[in-house]
């Protein structure tokens, strides 16, 4: 009897506590109408929000992205911050689920009153975030979501990477024109929209250019045995295999492909860009190709410095996710410095005007659809590093 009452009382208190906190912080007004957003940066800090997957099976990507942003913020603060104010970040984990991404964004936008939101990696989660950020009129930049739908949600949503239709085209062109391939097999990640999106574009473009797709096989992110799919691909007799997945699986795929006697070139996208590719793939990854935003070979001091600083702070060479997230934060900070004041609308307008921002991962210019217009580079995997091959312009 007593436990019963105690437990119900506890729940009521929790509910009450929750309620109190929510109505105590000023409600943002009806979600549909533009939030008048009183300069939340009154005081000497300005708050930006981040939403990433810090747990779950996509944890490594979220953690990389967060690290990249952290570095950018730290550097900016060391240089005096933005308009004399220190930048503070609020990071929430969304466990890789869109409802939690929407939850975290709602909290950031309404409770924490951030001026800007950065996130996410997976396009589904970014779309969820965008649907909260747009009506609340909070500018949002996604570092690495590549599905075109993300920025279509509204004019407050931006991205600093190229979109699937471009990157898929890049590799199709390279495969056809440079490698002179006629028959290509594709091995895609079922659980990743990025991988599926690239597959769709690549198959379409490659066929348009006169090539033939001889097999399309699928795996799941997190799998470690790809021999069944690779054996089936081997049977189809391709002269190249397109694997638009992430480095965790690609390294192992390359190893198993070689083990099965597949010696044709493998091709991929920026999801390959990480030290882990070499750790997991060993020498099997050498000699293959990937499309990317930039070349770490790039002797520019900015790139060198970034790689060295990142390594010192986090113990490993940055992967593509960390690099592009660093640039996303950089674009945001540059916009905040350019903007006349730190209101959400001004920041949004400043971001929209980003032109030739000197990012580590390539120069960023945002087009009228708020996507980044950048050339892509094709790299060849060498011994422990990526070697520049060629540039392909949009």
């Amino acid at each position, binding site marked *: 009897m007593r436990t019963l009452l105690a*437990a119900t009382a506890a729940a009521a208190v929790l509910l009450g506590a929750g309620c109190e906190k929510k109505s105590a912080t000023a409600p943002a007004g009806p979600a549909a109408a533009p939030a008048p957003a009183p300069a939340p940066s009154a005081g000497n800090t300005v708050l930006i929000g981040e939403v990433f997957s810090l747990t779950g099976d996509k944890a490594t990507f979220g953690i990389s992205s967060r690290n990249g942003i952290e570095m950018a913020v730290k550097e900016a603060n060391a240089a005096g911050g933005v308009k004399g104010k220190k930048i503070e970040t609020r990071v929430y984990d969304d466990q890789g689920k*869109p409802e939690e991404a929407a939850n975290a964004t709602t909290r950031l936008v309404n409770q924490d009153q951030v001026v800007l939101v950065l996130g996410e990696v997976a396009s589904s989660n970014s779309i969820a975030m965008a649907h909260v950020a747009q009506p609340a009129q909070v500018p949002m930049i996604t570092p690495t979501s590549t599905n075109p739908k993300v920025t279509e949600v509204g004019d407050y949503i931006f991205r600093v990477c190229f979109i699937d239709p471009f990157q898929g085209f890049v590799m199709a062109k390279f495969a056809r024109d440079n490698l002179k391939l006629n028959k290509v097999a594709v091995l895609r990640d079922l659980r990743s929209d990025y991988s599926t999106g690239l597959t769709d574009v690549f198959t379409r473009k490659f066929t348009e250019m006169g090539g033939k797709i001889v097999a399309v096989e699928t795996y799941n992110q997190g799998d470690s045995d790809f021999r069944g799919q690779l054996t089936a691909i081997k049977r189809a007799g391709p002269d190249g295999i397109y694997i638009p997945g992430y480095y965790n699986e690609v390294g192992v795929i390359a190893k198993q492909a070689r083990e099965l006697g597949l010696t044709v070139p493998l091709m991929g996208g920026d999801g390959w860009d990480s030290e882990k590719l070499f750790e997991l793939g060993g020498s099997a990854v050498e000699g293959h190709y990937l499309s990317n935003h930039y070349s770490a070979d790039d002797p520019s001091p900015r790139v060198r410095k970034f790689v060295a600083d990142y390594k010192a702070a986090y113990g490993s060479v940055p992967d593509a996710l960390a690099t592009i997230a660093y640039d996303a934060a950089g674009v945001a900070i540059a916009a905040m410095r350019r903007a006349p004041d730190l209101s959400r609308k001004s920041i949004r307008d400043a971001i929209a005007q980003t032109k030739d921002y000197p990012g580590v991962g390539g120069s960023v210019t945002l087009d009228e659809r708020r996507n980044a217009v950048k050339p892509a580079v094709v790299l060849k995997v060498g011994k422990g590093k990526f070697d520049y091959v060629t540039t392909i312009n949009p």
Partner: protein
Amino acid sequence: MASIPAPLRGVLPVLLALVVLAGLQLFVGDLPFFVYVSSLVGVNIILAVSLNIVNGMTGQFSIGHAGFMAVGAYVGGKLALEMKDLAIAGLPSAASDQLQLLASLAVGGAAAALAGFLVGLPSLRLRGDYLAIVTLGFGEMIRVIVSNLEVFGRALGLSGIPQTSSFMMIWAWVFLVVLVARRIQDSAHGRSLLAIREDEVAAEAMGVDTTGYKVRAFVISSFFAGVAGALFAHFVPIINPGSFTFVKSIEVVTMVVAGGLGSITGSIVAAVVLTLLPEVLRSLFLQVGGLEGGAALAQKVDQIRMPVYGLLLVILMLARPQGLFGSREFWDALPRWWTRFRRAAP
């Protein structure tokens, strides 16, 4: 006390609830974060209470509830997407939206109920542990099917579903599922379920059609899971297979078990606590730790959530396996005059 006419007596609580909820809706309408979190809580309560009907009242091991939620979400969501540009003539758009929402809920729930029937009929003949694996497998299979079909958006998922759900709609359904569960519990039907739970062989010997009752419980439970899923699809901007994994099923099972198998109150309380706890902790750490330290601490909390969940399950089973409420309900604790009022036959 004025006697309530018989036909109205059944529906009265629902009407009362609707009035109360409408009032609350006016009050909380402009608190988007509160509405969002309370919607999540509401959906979890519906899931927990519906699962309780199978796991708690009937004593079966079903651990694939997220699969039925997924069926409801995708089917209801897809229907809503198709109907997006249509409106019912002659009604103000808000009413038309709500009617369309109700249609999606009904269809999503029905699809999930059908799935429940198809899964339940063959597997409820099997032993308890096997049912667990089959329901788990069903959940996984739904995910695979959805990930493969372009019509359901594959890995990206379905976006653009009209976000017409509201505080009132969700909590009305919470009320409904609790009412239905309660009515089942108090009825002869419910007593048969309890008999099956306590000793299936004896129940069969007493003439209870065990398979029939089990399947029925399964179907009712899946229906509400489907409704929960369809509601979910109407307030979350995009749904994809990642929201309906085995981990979600286990979260719901945890709520039912922690609350007490067979106790509706327990499921409600556990669902509320387990959904709100991470949010409360986040707020707490941010306030206590200040901006810098608090944020880092809140992140750590997010990271240790899953292992702590696991530990919680273990400790709970070791220390208090009957769950928080055992099989008691809070309405058992209501003062005598209320129960006498209810039972007073005109």
